[in-house]
């Protein structure tokens, strides 16, 4: 990739940085409890929680840093943080 004039870039390359490798704890989603409120998706600082075909939510573990906000804020306590086996 040629050096960009003036230190500039177009969107997309941040996704080369797989921040999922930072994780110590991993959010496990229990979809049966999910009320589909979408708070987890709204509050994720990584923007890596996506709605699936059923209207419930799943994180993209490639980028999930395991911060735990989704688990903490889920009104149905449908997300649990589990220490990740590496």
């Amino acid at each position: 990739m040629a050096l960009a004039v003036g230190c500039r870039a177009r969107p997309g390359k941040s996704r080369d940085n797989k921040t999922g490798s930072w994780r110590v704890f991993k959010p496990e989603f229990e979809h049966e409890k999910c009320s589909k409120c979408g708070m987890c998706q709204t509050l994720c600082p990584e923007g890596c929680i996506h709605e699936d075909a059923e209207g419930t939510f799943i994180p993209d573990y490639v980028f999930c840093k395991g911060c735990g906000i989704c688990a903490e804020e889920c009104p149905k306590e449908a997300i649990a943080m589990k220490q990740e086996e590496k």
Partner: protein
Amino acid sequence: MMEITEGSHAVAEAVRLCRPQVVSAYPITPQTHIVEALADFVANGELDAEYINVENEFSALSACVGASAAGSRTYSATTSQGLALMFEVCFNAAGMRLPIVMSIANRAMGAPLSIWNDMQDSISLRDAGWLQFYAEDNQEATDLHFIAYRVSEDPTVLLPAFVCFDGFILSHTYEPIDMLTQDDVDRYLPRFSPPERLDAADPISFGMYATPEYYHEFRYAHDKALKEAQNVIAKAGKEFATLFGRDYGAMVEGYKLDDAETVIVAMGSVCGTIKDAIDEMQTDGKKVGLLKIRVFRPFPSEDVAKFIKGAQRVQRIAVLDKNISLGAKGATALEVKDALYGSAVPIWNYIIGLGGRDVRKKDIKEIVSLAEQGHGDQFYGLRKEVL
């Protein structure tokens, strides 16, 4: 079209003809007449630009950064303290590769506070990565703005430019100017159309930060672009000559160098005085010539070496500097010494005219005598009675 006009007004008219879309203005002696004239143009519908009354010079150049990044041709003017306040933004604008053109009505730096002319202000920013043009007279000051925009905006350059002219000496002096017409300028200077700009249709992040893996290479690319700008200057200058008869293709100019035994090297308005003094000295049988430098960045090292080599009778070189890198020498002298490294010809530095001290023909003649006697590397013309 010939007109007799104040330097500042000529510059303002030249800028008007360049059709900037955004003018960022803050007053400071001795450039204020420029921004006032531009304000008048806007108020009377003669310049279709957004005129921003910024609250300080730092913001003046910052606004230009934004306007240029968004794809508009932009302009500001400053000097001395104002330029110093913009120091940080100067490095930023150049590193971001934004083709902003800024007039500098050269003025001494405080402390001590001075409103009068010398070149310490723009010279002190020679490391920032801008093109630097220096005008000998108001015709050059005017024309160099057209050249500056044309060179700055060239897609292989994309670097900001200072157009420098001596404060008061040029900015406030009335001279006859051959002013181009709007059609002339429209023919010479195409509409500003940068390859990249802030635009929702093609989102780009400008001004990212560079880690050690990349910074070195960005600096290299910048330096390369600035050095190679001399080719663009040559082309732009030659085209100007073809269209309008005045040649700005060369970064240096020789005056009576052919048989000169003493060569004076200088920049700016003092060159006019030097030429007059040379004519008088030639009449008296003294062989003196002038190497005028019109572009200081990129520094024309090769051209300086070539011209001095061509002055086959040269026995000594007197470099005049209206600036001093305090603790060392004048900036031009240091550059010239580098350009002539290996030459046996003695190179003497004379610091002249700081803080508006007048430099007259007799001073030039005295400097030549001092050089002939081997007395150099000094502040010329110190008033010993006040020391």
